[in-house]
């Protein structure tokens, strides 16, 4: 099939960008979207034109590197990662717009490549469990209810791609942050830092310039890992608990027993 790509070209973070038009012919429906860019780049190189910069690494939907906005939708029409989008989702003659993630905290480095290190800094602000190497207790010492382990896993599948931010009219990274809060906060190992974590991560989220969440839900429509919207309610609950109990000074101790029970009820709503 033959298609036309309109691609965002921007030489560097300071330069002004614009859309450039490229015709790409003889595309196979088995190609992935990134492979079309590969083919186009080969051609551009031979013509002496600067190839299009775009990020990718695993090319199998697990590393989160490859996101671009396709026809206005983060990762394109399939609710999967860009690298897992195949040309059979398009038709002969289509004109396809390709742009980088657009959000102030994700500055464009070049063309379709953006700097997502703001996510790293949100993790640094508490998105971990402090477990110095060599001090870990026996893994069986603390049983984890299967339901919690499974839900923690669901949240842990977030690949930090940033599509949620790109899709959100507010440029909010709440779904990403909530995925991490949910993953770590559902596990017993994550309890001692549960409240300092949420306070720290949300504060950093705001410092980075991500917008607030107003429950629009565009994020979940594009999230390739189907992180549920309810994780955000969970984050909000934890945040309110933390703030009413003393904010970031919340003692690093396990929550009270009654709070744990409250947890159980919440889960049903997921």
């Amino acid at each position, binding site marked *: 099939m033959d298609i036309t790509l309109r691609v965002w070209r921007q*030489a*560097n973070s300071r330069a002004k960008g614009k859309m450039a038009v490229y015709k790409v012919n003889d595309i*196979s*429906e*088995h*190609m992935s979207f*990134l*492979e079309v860019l*590969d083919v186009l780049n*080969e051609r551009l*190189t*031979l013509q*002496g034109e*600067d*190839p299009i*910069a775009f990020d*990718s*690494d*695993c*090319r*199998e*939907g*697990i*590393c989160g590197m490859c996101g671009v906005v396709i026809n206005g939708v983060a990762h394109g029409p*399939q609710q999967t990662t860009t690298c*897992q989008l*195949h040309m059979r989702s398009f038709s002969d003659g289509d004109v396809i717009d390709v742009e980088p993630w657009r959000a102030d905290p994700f500055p464009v*480095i*070049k063309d379709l*490549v953006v700097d997502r*290190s703001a996510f*790293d800094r949100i*993790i*640094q*602000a508490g*998105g*971990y*469990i*402090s*477990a110095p*190497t*060599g*001090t*870990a*207790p*026996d*893994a*069986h010492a603390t*049983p*984890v*209810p*299967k339901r919690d*382990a499974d839900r*923690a*896993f669901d949240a*842990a599948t977030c690949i930090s791609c940033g599509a949620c931010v790109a899709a959100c009219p507010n440029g909010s990274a709440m779904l990403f942050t909530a995925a991490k809060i949910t*993953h770590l906060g559902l*596990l017993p*190992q*994550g309890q001692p830092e549960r409240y300092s974590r949420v306070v720290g991560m949300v504060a950093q989220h705001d410092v980075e310039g991500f917008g607030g969440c107003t429950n629009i839900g565009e994020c979940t429509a594009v999230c390739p890992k189907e992180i549920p919207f309810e994780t955000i309610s969970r984050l909000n609950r934890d945040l309110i608990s933390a703030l009413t109990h003393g904010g970031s000074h919340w003692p690093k101790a396990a929550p009270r027993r009654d709070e744990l029970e409250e947890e159980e009820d919440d889960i049903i709503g997921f």
Partner: protein
Amino acid sequence: MARRAKNYRNDGDSVYRLFYDTVKGGDFRARESNVYRLAEVSVEIIDQCVAQGVPFAREYGGLLDNRSFGGVQVSRTFYARGQTGQQLLIGAYQALERQIAAETVAMHTRHEMLELIVVDGRARGVVIRDMVTGGIETHFADAVVLATGGYGNVFYLSTNAVGCNVTATWRAHRKGAYFANPCFTQIHPTCIPVSGEHQSKLTLMSESLRNDGRIWVPKSGEDKRDPRKIPEQDRDYYLERIYPSFGNLVPRDIASRAAKNVCDEGRGVGPGGLGVYLDFADAIARLGRPAVEAKYGNLFSMYAQITGEDPYQTPMRIYPAVHYTMGGLWVDYDLQASIPGLYVTGEANFSDHGANRLGASALMQGLADGYFVLPNTINDYLADGPFPKVAESHPAAVEAVQAVRARIDKLLSVNGSRTVDSFHKELGRVMWDYCGMERSEEGLRKALNRIRELKKEFWSDVRVLGTNEELNQALERAGRVADFFELGELMCIDALVRRESCGGHFRVESQTPDGEALRDDDEFAYVSAWEFGGDRRPVLHKEPLFYEYVEMKQRSYK
């Protein structure tokens, strides 16, 4: 040594079993002591990961699903969700970010190490390039650790991420670090076949599929019917036929070679005849679709996503693909390379897997190296310090920086007629054809000649546009491909010299009468550690291997 012997008795089966399986699985080309240590710390690794919040599968009682064999079974549990690696990586990543916040680690993302700085025979620093600005920087230290992964992408197509490359370890090799067993590569039997010229990477289907799927090809190469229309008597379930006791569960190298053989006979299926069927019809009939869906649902949908075919209706097509490289920089028991002060961990070293790696053991090894081995051994080295300070102006540093700049300038100035990728693809094809699943004296010699020609052509005809002072992905790739040429050459030499078959290394000249790999323990029970030869031949150093606890046997899965 005393401690080891004691542990053998105390730990009962689990540690020993893992140790035994790994030594045997590596086809007796791994160092026994390293493997035993790996098995010992495997249990601690799980404790550490759980403490970090890795969400392992749990049983209803809340305990970890299956733990009886140390690391092995736990990994198997992960397969249920097909995300082992990713989840362990996220755990390690979060722990790293915590250290960055604590300012004990400084992270330089989008920077690439391009040269090792060696001062007075010790590794004392690196030269790195800022991939956004093109800035060339030096960093100095008392010791250098490389954890830069494997080199499977020398084949161009592999299951590895497209960014994987050999540059860091190859640059260290050129500075004197020995490269061990470069020809030991693992070809994974269950990957989605190549769909065309445009293919940029291959996708692994979890090995667990072989538990319930049955592998077959038509008995006759002429049989082009829809697979569902081919009756039982016209199908050849070749693994079940040749290996009645292990059937579809034979180790990776055996399953891969068997697939190649049936395709070479002209019985392969799908585009280009490079594929075999992995059929779940029996499993669906036996267990019901919901059970199959619960077990493999995400893999099936991944397959459907990539191929556009529905594996519930029609058999999957699979073909082997390069997946892991057992070879790597040579290290001693302390994970120190042959350059003092240089340490190498994870897939980048050669340490634990011999000639073939068992499933789920790569991450175990990487985490063992980083969490439990290095913190102990590197301290021992640092205790020799303090080492004299190295200044930016030290001749070794100046020389390294100049070398990096000269190479970049050269790559940018050739301005020839071929793209970097076209060279990479061609190199990959040569490696796959002659240094892949089957290697022969004749083929390897052919490959060596072709690689040398290609390398020359590359340096005189490659086209890399743009400048150094910008994000220039073609330039990044060009440097990596240049190193892949040199590595590819060494792999072929290593494969030529090792005139035996073992693990993933199959020399056609060395096989049993029924076509199985034939080891030659008298001649080749050694690690080949290659010293860089510059313009001359590389020099082979042999580290003999001794087996005190596991008796050397011919593997048999019949």
